[in-house]
């Protein structure tokens, strides 16, 4: 051993001061600038589209807001015409935008670690002086922040884009409806962060880029669908109304007829309707028969007169923000848990 390497026998308990984090900044930037460009593209292209189509939408909406006297039949018609013309296109756009978090998870989150395994470069990276645990954190944290911030900015833009639809009465769509709720407020950044975290964990568990991407898509879609269908409607106890018309902007969970406090079966309803020759196809859709008296009117009124009550279980639109915070919170907690698990796997991992 020469003098250079052996000034004193190293103390096994001596701890070296870790290398400063900023050393990793250049590394993370140099390695992931393409991924960051991808993030800009994934959010930027739809953002440009939202701006281009949002301006005429707001222009058209100006006619609705300018209508006086507000609330008059004429103005309601103006609003309805506006919705008829635009709501379909807006909802299709919103449907397509659902893909954004999934794309971020698959194309940004999954390859971060999976590519290191696929190419074997983890054996270079993890044997440098920086240490693999901090190396992983220094890569995941800036990327997670970047995708979350980009998604937050995008959700502001989408809210602006969607504002005229809400202002004009919302059409048939509630702000709590699945494809709208998760593009606004804190839900979009939270879902995007969750997708990124799912991708990162899938990357280290699967260690191959393409399978990890598909796994990320599958898990994210599963989580989003289950949340929209089963979880979100139950963030708070739902409300029930027996009024025939539930608020138009509410998220309807369940609608049905009951008699004597018990849910009415289709058979019961059909028996009641037989004298007037009307057939109930579902509890809401009816078909008049040849024996139905002319000018029979609304079968629902007939049923109400025969002891039926209509009950609608729903979440009012006013719960939009509480629900946003609930969803944002648990998704944030889940994302942090997934990222912590990823870091732990890197730390623990044996080749």
């Amino acid at each position, binding site marked *: 051993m020469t003098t250079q390497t052996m000034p004193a*026998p190293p103390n096994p308990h001596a701890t070296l001061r870790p290398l400063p984090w900023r050393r*990793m900044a250049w590394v993370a930037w140099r*390695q992931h600038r393409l991924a960051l460009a991808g993030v800009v593209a994934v959010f930027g292209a739809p953002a440009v589209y939202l701006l281009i189509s949002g301006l005429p939408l707001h222009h058209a909406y100006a006619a609705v807001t300018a209508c006086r006297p507000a609330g008059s039949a004429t103005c309601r018609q103006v609003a309805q015409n506006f919705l008829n013309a635009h709501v379909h296109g807006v909802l299709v756009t919103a449907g397509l935008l659902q893909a954004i978090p999934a794309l971020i998870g698959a194309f940004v989150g999954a390859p971060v670690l999976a590519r290191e395994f696929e190419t*074997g470069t983890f054996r*270079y990276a993890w*044997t440098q*002086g*920086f240490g693999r645990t901090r190396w992983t954190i220094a890569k995941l944290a800036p990327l997670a922040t970047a995708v979350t911030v980009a998604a937050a900015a995008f959700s502001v833009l989408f809210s602006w884009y969607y504002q005229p639809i809400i202002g004009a009465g919302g059409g048939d769509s509630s702000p709590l409806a699945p494809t709208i709720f998760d593009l606004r407020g804190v839900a979009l950044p939270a879902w995007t962060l969750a997708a990124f975290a799912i991708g990162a964990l899938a990357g280290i568990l699967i260690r191959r880029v393409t399978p990890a991407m598909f796994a990320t898509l599958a898990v994210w879609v599963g989580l989003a669908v289950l949340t929209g269908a089963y979880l979100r409607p139950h963030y708070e106890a739902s409300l029930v109304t027996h009024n025939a018309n539930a608020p138009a902007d509410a998220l309807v969970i369940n609608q049905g007829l009951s008699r004597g406090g018990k849910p009415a079966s289709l058979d019961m309803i059909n028996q009641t309707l037989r004298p007037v020759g009307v057939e109930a196809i579902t509890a809401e859709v009816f078909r008049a028969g040849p024996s139905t008296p002319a000018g029979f009117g609304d079968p629902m009124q007939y049923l109400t007169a025969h002891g039926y009550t209509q009950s609608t279980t729903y979440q009012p639109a006013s719960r939009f923000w509480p629900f946003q915070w609930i969803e944002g919170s648990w998704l944030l907690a889940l994302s942090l848990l997934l990222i912590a698990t990823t870091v732990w796997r890197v730390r623990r991992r044996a080749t």
Partner: protein
Amino acid sequence: MNIIEARGLGKCYGGSWALRECTLAIPTGHVVALVGPNGAGKTTLLNLAVGLAAPTAGTVTVLGGQPAGSGAALDGIAFVAQDTPLYKNLSAADMLHMTRNLNRRFDDGYARARLDELGIPLKRTAGKLSGGQHTQLALTLALARRPQLLVLDEPMAMLDPLARHDFMAAVMTAVADHGVSVLLSSHVLAELERVADYLVLLSSGSVQMAGEVDDLLASHRVLTGSAADADRYAERLNVVHARRGEAQAHLLVRMNGATEPVPHGWEAHPVSLEELALAYLREPGAAALPGPARDRPQPSELTT
């Protein structure tokens, strides 16, 4: 100080042991050849030593007692993995920059001068370098870290004979100039015979022979004599491997000392390193494991 010290080290992958009961104490300042057939556990042992893998059993420390994979260990060990993985889309200059950022010490001037000398353009991406240049770049990055221990896993697999020579010359220069200890693996002993002064022979997951090359050569002899007497002598000697002809028998014997008398009527010849390694590899039961920092095993099994 031991550059690597393993006690009862074992690594199990999905129920099968890639390495087991590995006990080693390699002193600092050597060029260590880790030799064994494919699948003998060489890469596993190296991964454990550099902290990429965690042991299933036993312990391994490096650089005089540092746990493998600890901060101090990472700091003092430069590892060039098999197939020399580098980021293909990064240029040589970027790889230099990255390695400098990720380590406490990095001799940028040395690295640039060496790449210049090798004719490796700084702007070319690692993916576009030839196999030889790629390996040289990986070695340059490792050497520029000024490690105490350089670990190379099958470093010459991708190189043609001329590039192998250049590669080993660079390693040996670092040994001479900076006193770096080197641990390099290969399944071809001939590659390392000229440079290594310490040999670790691995076979089916266990260490079969370990020691300084000079000691190993000095303690083994080939005895040639009458085949009729062979069995009689074999009982008294530590025979590693026996080769018998019609009339003559060749016994590769581990001597208990250089002065051990040769039986009457027999001739003793020195043994070459390759001959020695092959003899041990042919006899999985034989083992020669010196080392003061560990329990000396029973003298090698008598095998014929």
